[in-house]
């Protein structure tokens, strides 16, 4: 027998030939229902299940969309005629800042995470995401941060530096808390976004149904995986930049102040290193909805599945090499402009591939008319035009004229409304039956579509011309003499028509549907797993977890619906009344263990409130309260992990049906928790490298950096500190071995010594710049050295807390030689801590020697 065939036999079991007896099935259903019960009454808000959290999350993002949309309408009233005084300059400036920031950070990005929280498990036949409480934490953090930010405009305290927050305007010329609200509020939300991204990545890599190899993954999941990976590397530059700017605002370290050797352009690099990928982070998961809708309404699998996947990955990669096209007019050399111009054009190719795959699928299939298809076609019409104007502005000479004008405003609204809002509305009409068990009104949908489509074009098309006739962005008024009054009036009228269309979609979503009958199951006759859901759905997600061997199982695997419903597949039962789902291997989705998932809890809400408190108190420079809030937050998170993660199961393994028995606990890289730590650490590394980038950026713009050959942290103390931290890492490594060998004394000794050495090493690392008298307020050189040292301190602090956690867990009997996931996760963190320390020492102590 060939290897390939043996592999096939192992990986492709069939469902039970005969359904379990009726009585057993009823009992199984009752137990599943009990385990996955959604809390009722006010306790409903302690739910952590993905269908609940995803729904709240989506609804919240729609509220923010409406809020930012109203701001847009008010701005359009102000611009309706030249020299208007409907709002003041100061209010207008707050409005466009809040409009842009809310649309980006509180709608476009989180709506993707919200939709993904809702559908990822259903598409993967999983019962929930791997970290349900983390999803809930992410949602609450988002709500707290979002309300704090949006609310500021009602107190005339909103940020007014534009969503791009360019210093020195925002660092030195805007006293008041507006910029701090922006910097700290969004940093909090970005942390939540990264948490969601970690969840998405682990979810799509480790929580797929058995047999769903990577080449069978639904396209939506591929897109989400790409976008989440992009978040990991795109958000850290913004977090690093915000950290530098907040430090400058609060403590006067001159990162962006030329007087102290700083440079405002560093912010622009960091911001657009985030900002450009951000556009694709918004676009890819939205177009992913189209990639699900098109095959359904063509009633055939996607043509060019592999092309679509490669194009999505390609777009993700290329998008990190384009940021400078937002900086074409900052006086960069011609060769730089040419390179980034060409790279920017290159992104048109993978985008084109995706669009043509969709068209080819429509051509090959049996197309039926529907509201989701209508919005899909609207997407193509609008987005392609926005893409083409994007090709235009990527050509440097044209950008010299179009940059920072209404031409660009038109361009990116074509891209974002065409490439995100229309697909999301298509998705609303498509997925709504899975949420409420009922369909939205096709009649309202068609009316809403035409209002939105016509209104959008009337509003935004004239802006192309207004921009070229000389209308810059972010102006609260314009003079009559330049002849753009009629274009602006058109835009204002169009904006209200568009808003009517959007409002109609909202109405269709929320209107009472009591009398309307439930939709039939799988109403569009789709082929992917989320459509196995009954109408209305059950909280358990999926009745039994199927073995998958095709891309469109509902089309290609006969009887799959019956087999799932009758519990003929895996995990048809919850014998111990615990929430469970299957974890599989990354590439070929072989089941590896059963993960136990936590149920409803208030802890995520408390954690979000206290960690949010840190950022909010920080905004008002109430440092002690902020610190206290953070300490309480860490305590809550400690307790949350203590009672709900890496719990030692009552038995080592359990049968999941079809003759398969899986362990109930996993440690190391098999464990989803380890993946969570690993991926979070990658994001931390990305932020760290941005700080290292800052160091070398300053070196590149100064002839003399470090400025004074004698100054600097020296070599001795940094090297001692680095050695201490590497020692702490080695001891942590050793402690893991001692624990595995069940040698308690050795474990406590080594890990305890590791804690001591970690603290001592950090102290030595900081003593270097301290003893050499580096004053961070004087110049960017000492400031950058101190920031690198401080970042190390944060990393070590995390590492030390984790070490202490392991000591406590073993002492409490919650971690043993066999059940050592906590230790493995701690070691994973320490690998990155040690690496960070080594690089820091090489930069601050080593580089001045060679510079």
């Amino acid at each position: 027998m060939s290897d390939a065939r043996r592999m096939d036999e192992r990986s492709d079991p069939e469902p039970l030939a005969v359904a379990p007896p009726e009585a057993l099935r009823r009992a199984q259903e009752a137990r599943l229902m009990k385990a996955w019960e959604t809390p009722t009454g006010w306790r409903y808000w302690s739910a952590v299940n993905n269908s609940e959290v995803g729904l709240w999350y989506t609804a919240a993002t729609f509220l923010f969309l409406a809020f930012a949309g109203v701001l847009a309408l008010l701005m359009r009233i102000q611009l309706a005629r030249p020299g208007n005084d409907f709002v003041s300059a100061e209010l207008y400036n707050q409005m466009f800042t809040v409009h842009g920031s809310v649309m980006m950070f509180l709608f476009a990005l989180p709506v993707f995470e919200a939709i993904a929280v809702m559908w990822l498990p259903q598409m993967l036949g999983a019962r929930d995401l791997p970290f349900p409480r983390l999803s809930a934490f992410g949602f609450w953090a988002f709500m707290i941060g979002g309300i704090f930010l949006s609310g500021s405009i009602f107190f005339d305290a909103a940020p007014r530096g534009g969503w791009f927050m360019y210093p020195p305007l925002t660092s030195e010329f805007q006293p008041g808390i507006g910029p701090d609200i922006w910097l700290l509020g969004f940093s909090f939300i970005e942390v939540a976004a990264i948490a969601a991204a970690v969840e998405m990545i682990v979810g799509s890599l480790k929580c797929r149904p058995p047999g769903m190899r990577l080449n069978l993954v639904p396209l939506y999941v591929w897109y989400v995986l790409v976008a989440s990976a992009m978040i990991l590397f795109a958000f850290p530059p913004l977090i690093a930049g915000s950290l530098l700017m907040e430090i400058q605002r609060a403590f006067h370290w001159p990162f962006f102040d030329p007087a102290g050797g700083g440079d405002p352009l560093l912010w622009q690099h960091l911001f657009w290193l985030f900002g450009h990928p951000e556009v694709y982070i918004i676009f890819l998961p939205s177009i992913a909805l189209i990639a699900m809708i098109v095959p359904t309404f063509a009633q055939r699998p996607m043509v060019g599945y592999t092309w679509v996947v490669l194009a999505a990955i390609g777009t993700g990669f290329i998008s990190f090499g384009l940021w400078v096209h937002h900086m074409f007019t900052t006086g960069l050399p011609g060769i730089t402009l040419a390179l980034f111009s060409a790279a920017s054009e290159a992104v048109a190719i993978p985008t084109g591939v995706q669009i043509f795959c969709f068209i080819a699928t429509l051509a090959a299939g049996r197309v039926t008319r529907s509201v989701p298809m209508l919005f899909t076609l609207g997407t193509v019409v609008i987005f392609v035009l926005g893409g083409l104007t994007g090709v235009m502005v990527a050509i440097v000479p044209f950008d010299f004229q179009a940059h920072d004008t209404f031409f660009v405003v038109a361009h990116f609204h074509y891209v974002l409304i065409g490439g995100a809002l229309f697909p999301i509305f298509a998705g609303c009409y498509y997925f709504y039956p899975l949420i409420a068990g009922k369909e939205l009104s096709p009649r309202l949908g068609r009316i809403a579509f035409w209002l939105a489509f016509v209104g959008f074009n009337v509003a935004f098309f004239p802006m192309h011309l207004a921009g070229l006739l000389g209308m810059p962005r972010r102006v609260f008024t314009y003079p009559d003499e330049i002849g753009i009054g009629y274009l602006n009036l058109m835009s204002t009228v169009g904006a209200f028509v568009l808003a009517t269309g959007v409002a109609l979609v909202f109405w269709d979503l929320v209107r009472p549907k009591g009398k309307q009958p439930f939709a039939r199951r799988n109403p569009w006759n789709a082929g992917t797993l989320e459509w196995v859901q009954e109408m209305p759905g059950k909280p358990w997600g999926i009745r039994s977890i199927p073995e998958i061997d095709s891309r469109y199982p509902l089309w290609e695997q006969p009887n799959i619906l019956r087999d799932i419903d009758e519990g003929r597949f895996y995990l048809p039962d919850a014998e111990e009344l615990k929430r469970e789902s299957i974890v599989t291997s990354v590439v070929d989705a072989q089941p590896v263990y059963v993960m136990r998932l936590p149920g409803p809890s208030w802890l995520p809400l408390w954690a979000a409130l206290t960690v949010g408190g840190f950022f909010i108190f920080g905004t008002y420079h109430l440092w002690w309260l902020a610190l206290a809030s953070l300490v309480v937050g860490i305590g809550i998170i400690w307790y949350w992990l203590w009672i709900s993660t890496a719990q030692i199961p009552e038995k080592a393994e359990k049968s999941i049906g079809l003759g398969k028995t899986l362990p109930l606990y996993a440690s190391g890289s098999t464990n989803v928790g380890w993946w969570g730590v690993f991926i979070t650490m990658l994001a931390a590394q990305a932020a760290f490298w941005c700080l290292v980038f800052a160091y070398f950026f300053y070196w590149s713009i100064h002839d003399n950096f470090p400025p004074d050959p004698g100054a600097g942290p020296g070599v001795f103390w940094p090297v001692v500190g680095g050695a201490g931290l590497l020692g702490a890492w080695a001891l942590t490594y050793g402690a893991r071995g001692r624990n595995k060998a069940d040698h308690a004394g050795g474990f406590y000794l080594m890990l305890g010594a590791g804690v001591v050495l970690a603290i001592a090493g950090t102290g030595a690392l900081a003593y270097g710049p301290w003893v050499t008298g580096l004053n961070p307020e004087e110049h960017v050189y000492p400031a950058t050295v101190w920031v690198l040292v401080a970042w190390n301190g944060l990393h070590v602090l995390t590492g030390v807390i984790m070490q202490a956690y392991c000591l406590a867990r073993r002492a409490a009997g919650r971690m043993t030689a066999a059940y050592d996931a906590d230790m493995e996760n701690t070691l994973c963190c320490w690998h990155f801590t040690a690496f960070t320390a080594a690089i820091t020492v090489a930069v601050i102590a080593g580089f001045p020697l060679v510079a």
Partner: protein
Amino acid sequence: MSVFHMPDADAVIERRARRRLALVLLVILASSGCGGIQSALAPAGEQATRVAGLFWFMTVGGLAIWLGVVALALFYSRPHEPAPSRRRNRWLIVGGGVVFPIVVLTILLAYGLAMIPPIVARAPEGSLLIDVGGEMWWWRVRYEVPGREPVELANEIRLPVGAPVQFRLSSDNVIHSFWIPSLGGKMDLIPGRVTYFALRPTRTGVFAGVCAEYCGTSHALMRFYVEVMEPDAFEEWLRHQATPAAAPATPMAEEGQRVFTASGCGACHTVRGTDARARMAPDLTHVATRMSLAAGTLPNQPDAMRRWLAHPERIKPGVHMPAFGMLPPDDVAALTAYLEGLR
């Protein structure tokens, strides 16, 4: 004879630019509504003419591609029976998604990138050099004339037609962006850096420029006017700008000068030839000759001047200039008379 000569080698480029200009103007006439003193589509400069040509080329091409893609999408999404075809798939995905964009983008990049060197190039040695400083929210303009004292003014630039001009841009406050759409693209003014931008106007007329980078409260009111003149007229204008301020010619203007001094206007403004020498605010030596007040926000008329002096913050929110509305109306009138006499 003018100190600004036009090198012979450039005459050829000049002719080509004119031919292209004529072509572009034709297109412009065909599509009404592209004119205006602040329009990138009614070019009056070499760079703007090139970019307008590029714009129309890309717009026509882009429109054709857009129509093609939309037609394909609509055609294939009409209700129809399944018609799978591997050949069509290949044509659409490889042809439409890969080969076609590569060909089109290569042509476009060849056209567009070739235009970068002339746009980022400095003006030839010996060209007119103008320092432009971005302020909140006005423009400091300084003509550097070899062998003479530099000439400073505000919110107004005059240029000789046909000659290249080198702008040297800087800011000591926030980031601004210098943009005269009719003449060419824009360039940022960045604290801690000096940026350069060269333009060459090709026809006479008055055009408007603006700040294109959001720079705070009154970003929208940071405008200026540009007059492109015949070289002789320009030369005469510049010589006049270099002269000290005219002495007050009427008793009222004399009174105005007294109010000017007494109210401390000289603590921020310069009027060359008087004791007012501060550089915080616009140079007022020849303020009466300018095309506008308050950085392109008001017409340069006595009534507007009075309103501005009394309550500048009502006209330009956030302005640094204090209000002088508390002065007796007669003093404001005298001040206006004095300033209107600074020709």
